[in-house]
């Protein structure tokens, strides 16, 4: 992969303070380095171990369930590390540029810090991206109604703010997180109207051999399901939510219509959480010029990395769900593994036995993930079945029908071309929310495997930022230069 060490005088930089970031920083500190540690959240922990704001008092057991011990251990590690690092919480990395060839640093990050929106420029020689993931959502009619959330969003509301998304909530989609969040809602005293899991019991049985590689995880999953069932929560496998219905005023979610494959049912609810697994946040890797490759396991284009986590771009390392969805435990191992690679690439001796142990665990995680894919497959007919009137891109209000029509009328067979011709992904989310579903839709509409439609390329800013917050160039261009530049673009 890359030739990673560039400037040993620059401290390593870690982006993300979830499980991968914490274990990476821990390893770097343990070997005598003082890394720069950037995280978008005010308090570390990432998504799965997200910490509530100071003063919130729900106990860890209620927040994290079985994972309370892991969460508390991670938070304790994190807290102990803070005095030993250059800590930058509440800081968005909104831009990243690789350095020009011949520069000693590998690249530069642009940071936006805190409510005052201070700008910083951070050059790096070595950078670990542990940027995590967000929900992969396959839209259905009505999913933009108030009361409808992504699964992860529903979890964040509960964990971070102690808010439920409704009083009677239905959980829709597929993936292990579906049951975990339903259970967390139930524990918080919310009525769980139903869990509508696209996957069939047969899928989950077929996946048992791979899932048994992590028997504890498997047992926890089974336990959540059993707990839900024991509490009288209807859990429907092989179920398919068809549409979400508004109330009479058309203003808020009132019910979900779903099918068991034989007949349609209508279920009253005032909150719905949707998710079909997760998608990696890869924008920074893209901006830094990392090579991407199609990963069938993750059904996504992801930055290429070696088994240690080295990306193809100079000085860039990848770990955790931001590089491919393997879950929180694997993120801890991958974070530590990548940090050991960063150390070794600096010429610092690392424990070879520990490296072997971590890689063995990561290999098992990948096999486990294969089991999860088999247990919770994406509904294969979603793209063919999603009705024309369904909004796919919320920012630009583009429906499935419009996207199909553009593809048919123009011959657009690639996602980037569909974007150009339809405005897909040109709004505030920049395709982070709609891109995965749009790829499935375009592949189906153009009769191609989904990898053939390619991917949307990241452009700064990674998330919207106020114009006022932008840094001004130190050296202003003179009038003559400015004039040339203006004429250059003003066709």
């Amino acid at each position, binding site marked *: 992969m890359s030739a990673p060490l560039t400037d040993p005088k620059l401290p390593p930089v870690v982006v993300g303070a979830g499980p991968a970031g914490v274990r990476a920083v821990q390893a770097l500190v343990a070997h005598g380095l003082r890394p720069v540690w950037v995280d978008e959240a005010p308090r570390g922990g990432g998504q799965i171990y997200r910490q509530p704001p100071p003063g919130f008092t729900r106990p860890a057991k209620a927040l994290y369930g079985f994972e309370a011990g892991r969460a508390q251990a991670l938070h304790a590690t994190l807290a102990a590390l803070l005095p030993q690092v250059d800590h930058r919480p509440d800081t968005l990395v909104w831009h990243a540029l690789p350095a020009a060839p011949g520069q000693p640093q590998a690249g530069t990050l642009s940071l936006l810090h805190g409510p005052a929106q201070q700008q910083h420029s951070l050059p790096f020689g070595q950078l670990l991206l542990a940027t995590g993931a967000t929900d992969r959502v396959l839209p259905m009619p009505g999913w933009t109604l108030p009361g409808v959330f992504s699964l992860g969003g529903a979890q964040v509301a509960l964990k971070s703010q102690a808010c439920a998304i409704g009083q009677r909530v239905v959980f829709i989609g597929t993936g292990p997180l579906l049951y975990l969040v339903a259970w967390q809602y139930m524990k918080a005293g919310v009525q769980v109207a139903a869990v509508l899991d696209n996957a069939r019991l047969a899928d989950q049985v077929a996946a048992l051999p791979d899932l048994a590689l992590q028997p504890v995880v498997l047992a926890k999953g089974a336990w959540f399901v059993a707990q839900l069932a024991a509490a009288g929560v209807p859990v429907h496998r092989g179920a398919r939510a068809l549409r979400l219905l508004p109330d009479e005023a058309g203003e808020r979610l009132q019910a979900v219509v779903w099918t068991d494959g034989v007949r349609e049912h209508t279920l009253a609810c005032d909150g719905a959480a949707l998710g079909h697994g997760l998608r990696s946040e890869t924008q920074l890797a893209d901006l830094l010029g990392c090579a991407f490759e199609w990963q069938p396991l993750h059904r996504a284009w992801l930055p290429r990395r070696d088994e240690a986590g080295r990306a193809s771009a100079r000085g860039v390392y990848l770990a955790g769900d931001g590089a491919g969805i393997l879950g929180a435990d694997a993120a801890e191992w991958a974070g530590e593994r990548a940090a050991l690679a960063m150390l070794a690439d600096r010429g610092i001796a690392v424990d070879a036995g520990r490296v072997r142990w971590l890689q063995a665990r990561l290999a098992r995680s990948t096999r486990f993930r294969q089991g999860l894919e088999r247990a919770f497959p994406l509904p294969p007919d979603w793209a063919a079945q999603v009705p024309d009137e369904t909004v796919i891109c919320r920012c630009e209000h583009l429906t499935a029908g419009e996207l199909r029509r553009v593809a048919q009328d123009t011959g657009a067979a690639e996602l980037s071309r569909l974007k150009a011709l339809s405005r897909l992904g040109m709004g505030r989310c920049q395709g982070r929310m709609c891109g995965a579903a749009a790829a499935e839709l375009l592949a189906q509409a153009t009769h191609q495997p989904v990898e053939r439609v390619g991917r949307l390329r990241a452009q700064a800013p990674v998330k919207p930022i106020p114009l006022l917050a*932008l*840094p001004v160039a130190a050296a202003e261009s003179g009038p003559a230069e400015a004039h040339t*530049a*203006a004429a250059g673009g*003003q066709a």
Partner: protein
Amino acid sequence: MNAPALQTPARRLKTDVAIIGGGIVGASAALALRQLGHRVVLLERDLCGSRSSGVNYGGVRRQGRLPVQLPLAQRAHPIWARLPELIGTDGEYRRSGHFKIARSESDMAALEAYADLSRDFDLGLQLLSADQVRAQCGPWLGGAAVGGSLCPEDGQANPRLVSPAFARAAARAGAQVLERHAVHEVVHDGALFHLRAGDGLQVQAPVLLNCAGAWAGALAAQFGEPVPLVSNHPAMAVTEPLPAFLPWSLGVEGGGIYCRQVPSGQLVLGGGQAEPVSADALHTRVAAPTLGTLMQQAIDLLPELRHAQLIRTWSGTEGNLPDRQPVLGPSATTPGLFHGFGFCGAGFQIGPAVGEVLAELVHSGRSSTPIEAFAITRFPSPAAVQTPLPGAHR
């Protein structure tokens, strides 16, 4: 409307005209040539309109061009009005007006001088006072202007729609438009050009159009006509949707920033230079300080933007020449070779007319629009003209 067959390559093609480059120039030339009955093969390395023509600011502007370009601009002007019948989409083209703002008396004097200089071309320029600007645009702009020059029939369009639509229209008219076919080699045997392209494709044609934009210089040099072409990467940015406030495409006398508001409410801004982040300049990024300067200029011009959100930046790759004029016309060394490149960031509006001119040159050997100022011979290359590179003429 049916999807045209953009990608149906035969392995060996014989045609009347081969075109390298699927930007707005190459694609509109292909369309115009088909309308004159010529067989055409267009080869595009990526997707048509993916570099400069499809990702530029989208200004459709005659105002501000030097008189030497105004005949081409005037020829293009009515073509833009015919886009729906010509290419099957209006491309969000609107004659919204192009307003060049003056922020000082000397700027205003420069705009007055340009109005005089361009008087023969009937651009319909209106010089507005500060009060008139305020009356037409409200408080958003009023404070910044001492006046300006409005060209009411200039305007804006969506380049992402327009440029690929020219390629699709050419394909519908019968041109073979082959995307994802980079040209690796061009040889002239005295009568025919032999092109070797991606996917094992070979094309033979007596006529070749060099419409390769920022990458056209290598081909020109191969035929003994080196030009001082350099790449240019305009920095572009767009805000979240805002309430409609800006009726015009807005430029600033003296340069720096330009902006327009699209129907969705988003404000498209440009100014400064992005950076190539790959050796072949296929990928570009706007660096943070460049963006900061652009945003500061935006806030200075339109103070209410200060709390608006920036949602995306991008750039492309344009070909620039030192005198800021394109190369357009026949090769001086090689019969059958015609150049159309180097539009210096100002090719979008004139592109459709340039396509027609290239088609005329192929069809009848002359252009009905004056193009002498754009001859490639204005760049001295005497040695190369007399002794072509080995392999170029076989």
